[in-house]
């Protein structure tokens, strides 16, 4: 039996999985800390993609270098969204909080999608760098440069987030707030400020994911909900609130999809994630890395 197509699929699965992971980590961070489901997360990924595209076509900035601009830009957008909208939701009791946050973020999805159509039209966009389509080959397995760099960027972003959450006082306050916000407030942590920071970080991570989408795949104004769904599946796989677990689950989903493409053909690709989703909910409702 020829193993080469299997290995090649696994390699691509890893690249895609890294992207799923980075898209899901932002959503998981926001959900875990604020207990708010931001359905517009995928739209933020989309905006990150367009920001990268715009920096590249208008100013010729390399998409990976552009992260130094796009990530802070999305961070600021996250700050604005929280201070302007979500801040009023997070003070509500648990039930109203989840309902109202769903309404607001669904609304935002529509707003961002139509805004993107006006600004960039509904055409598919992608960043074509001079090294797009090139790569190196090891034992007949192809490693495209853009995808490789994308995975490295995703890993770096996760590593930075991990160090921030485990080594700094502010990062630990974010974890404390996600585990028990009332107790956190009794420690002297300003919970509302922690929410603002977590949301802005989640948005910046969406921006990073968006940049990787623009480089490796295509961006259209309509991809928002699809990315939200993908990220949501990954977050549930990992366990709600397991921030680092989301990255692992992303890789897992990427590999599962890749293997299914090999085994059943590309048309069943989307089914795999949902089947996994249901299986995990049945067998391990707290998620793969969740605590109960």
């Amino acid at each position, binding site marked *: 039996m020829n193993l080469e197509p299997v290995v090649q699929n696994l390699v691509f699965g890893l690249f895609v999985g890294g992207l799923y992971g980075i898209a899901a980590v932002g959503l998981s961070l926001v959900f875990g800390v604020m207990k708010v489901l931001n359905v517009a997360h995928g739209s933020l990924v989309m905006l990150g993609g367009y920001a990268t595209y715009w920096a590249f076509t208008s100013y010729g900035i390399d998409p990976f270098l552009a992260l130094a601009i796009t990530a802070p830009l999305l961070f600021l957008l996250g700050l604005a969204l929280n201070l302007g909208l979500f801040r009023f939701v997070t003070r509500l009791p648990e039930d109203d909080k989840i309902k109202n946050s769903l309404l607001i973020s669904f609304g935002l999805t529509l707003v961002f999608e139509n805004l993107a159509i006006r600004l960039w039209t509904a055409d598919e966009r992608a960043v074509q760098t001079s090294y797009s389509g090139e790569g190196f080959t090891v034992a007949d397995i192809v490693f495209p440069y853009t995808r490789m760099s994308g995975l490295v960027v995703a890993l770096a972003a996760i590593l930075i987030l991990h160090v921030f959450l485990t080594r700094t006082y502010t990062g*630990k306050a974010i*974890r*404390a707030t996600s*585990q028990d916000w009332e107790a*956190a407030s009794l420690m002297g942590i300003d919970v509302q400020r922690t929410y603002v920071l977590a949301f802005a970080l989640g948005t910046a991570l969406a921006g990073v994911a968006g940049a990787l989408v623009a480089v490796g795949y295509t961006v259209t104004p309509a991809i928002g909900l699809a990315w939200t769904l993908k990220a949501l599946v990954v977050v549930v796989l990992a366990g709600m609130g397991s921030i680092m677990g989301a990255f692992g689950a992303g890789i897992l989903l990427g590999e599962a999809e890749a293997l299914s493409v090999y085994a059943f053909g590309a048309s069943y690709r989307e089914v795999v994630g949902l089947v996994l989703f249901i299986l995990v909910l049945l067998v391990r409702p707290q998620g793969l890395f969740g*605590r109960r």
Partner: protein
Amino acid sequence: MHIWAWGIMLDVHAISVAYGDLQALWEVSLRVQEGEIVVLIGPNGAGKTTLMRAVAGLQPPFRGRILIDGWEAQGQPPHRIVERGVVLVPEGRRLFPGMTVLENLEMGAYGRNPRRLREATLRRVYEIFPVLHERRDQAAGTLSGGQQQMLAIGRALMSLPRLLLLDEPSLGLAPLVVRDIFEVLRQVNAQGVAVLLAEQNAQMALELAQRAYILEQGRVAAEGAAQDMLQADHVRKAYLGQVSPIVEASK
């Protein structure tokens, strides 16, 4: 006209608290002086926890005032109240289970001033609870009940409080462990920290405290010196009633 006097750290003045349509406290007043131990006893559902949460800023009163050293604390968020030196060890301990013992303690010293002094405070807390030093890198969720309560108290001490509020610290703990915890409270108080303690274990609590309040159905039913309470008929019957015959015989 309500007058604030020197030496009164916490002055709860006629507060009423409600959860939605359900009123839990009715014009409750209570005072804690500097360095004092005050105990709050009463049956389940009397409003002890609500009163504690109101003082800590988690459940703001809809009427009445809460003064901390004369500063209007009602309606302030919890983190502002911690800054003023009043910290709550909540019912059920409420640790951060996925974080290590040391991280939990660090969170206790979150405020600017406590954070600056945290190494010294940490040494002090480890002196009081050596077991927390032994287990510093262990996840808080894996500690035993008694150790978790010690961590909850240690974490509160990290904020350098002048008034420590404790809500049912003995709940679910073995009698020997409860004795240790009460001994620690005595020790902490000896260092000048005032204590307001809500407790089911009325006998031990009254022996520890100088003054006591009895809360019944959301109102203060009685208040006075803890010694007198130990003697009072009403208190003996309602809260110290179950004197085991074996203990009686052994006297």
